[in-house]
């Protein structure tokens, strides 16, 4: 009879599942705009709001948003946070990161789309708390080579 020899064990394993997702016509066109250094929003004919990222329909009116608008690339910081820890998939060389939500001029919602603040030594925490404030003005800085995804905007720099 096998006696309980050791404490209950754990079994290490992994999940590795492939997915390929459709972007749909609206987001495809939105990201094509990124290739051309353009930020595109859509306008709702019922409530008149301009939303970024571009949407196929207005989330409040539930009407299709078919009018496309090129929006400004400058805005104000609505909120920000300084990320300083790791988990599986995030390695120490990837942090710190300053995540932010930004309200672009002329847009009726804020954008929390992988927007990061950069353009100065963000490892200096005291400098970060001095420069990054709710209400500060920021401007998009594009990557030189763009592929039509969220990484095309390298970071948002604070304009004094």
């Amino acid at each position, binding site marked *: 009879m096998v006696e*309980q020899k050791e404490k209950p064990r754990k079994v290490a394993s992994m999940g590795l599942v492939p997915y390929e997702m*459709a972007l749909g016509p609206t987001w495809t066109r939105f990201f094509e705009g990124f290739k051309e250094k353009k930020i595109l929003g859509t306008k709702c004919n019922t409530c008149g709001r301009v939303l970024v990222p571009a949407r196929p329909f207005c989330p409040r009116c539930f009407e299709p948003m078919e009018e496309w608008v090129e929006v400004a690339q400058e805005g104000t910081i609505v909120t920000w946070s300084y990320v300083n820890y790791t988990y599986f998939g995030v390695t120490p060389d990837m942090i710190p990161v300053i995540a932010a939500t930004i309200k672009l001029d002329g847009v009726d919602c804020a954008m929390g789309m992988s927007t990061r603040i950069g353009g100065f030594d963000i490892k200096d925490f005291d400098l970060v708390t001095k420069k990054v404030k709710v209400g500060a003005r920021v401007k998009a800085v594009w990557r030189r080579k763009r592929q039509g995804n969220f990484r095309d905007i390298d970071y948002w720099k604070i304009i004094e």
Partner: protein
Amino acid sequence: MAEKYKLIKDLIRLEIEDFTFPKKEYRTGRHDTVLPYNWALGPTWTRFFDGLKEEKIFGTRCKKCNKVLVPARTFCPICYEDMEEWVELPQEGSLETWCLVNYKYYGQVKKPPYIIAQIRLDKADCSLTHFIGGFSLSDPGKVRNKMKTVSRVKAVWSKEKHSDIYDIAYFKPV
């Protein structure tokens, strides 16, 4: 696959090849999930798998309904009582049902063709899911004829043991 795959390559014993999707005409984004897991076996399954490592198959008996279930359980699913009596089961049993798997899908644990079956070990009150093997599976017609004659099977152990269900390599017809 993903960059993250390299982070956990050492955990994988089974070969995972890259996956290609059927071609689509609109724009898509590839989004593979690569995540590490660490499952707790608990005392019952730890002991059950330790038993497999020593080439023993254990079941547990319920005090109330007297059924012996395998793999070993912590509690009886019918009576909801703890199953505390451990029983070493014979390694032979009768074949209840079987199926020849002859197609490929991503993440398969065994390369096809292989036979999955329900085996009722002698003295157990439920059947166990495992493979049938020990003969050529390349011709489905021949496999069907052979399986018609099979009623009793016996466990065949793997040479290398990892304290998991594959320590039993397959059940062979007797």
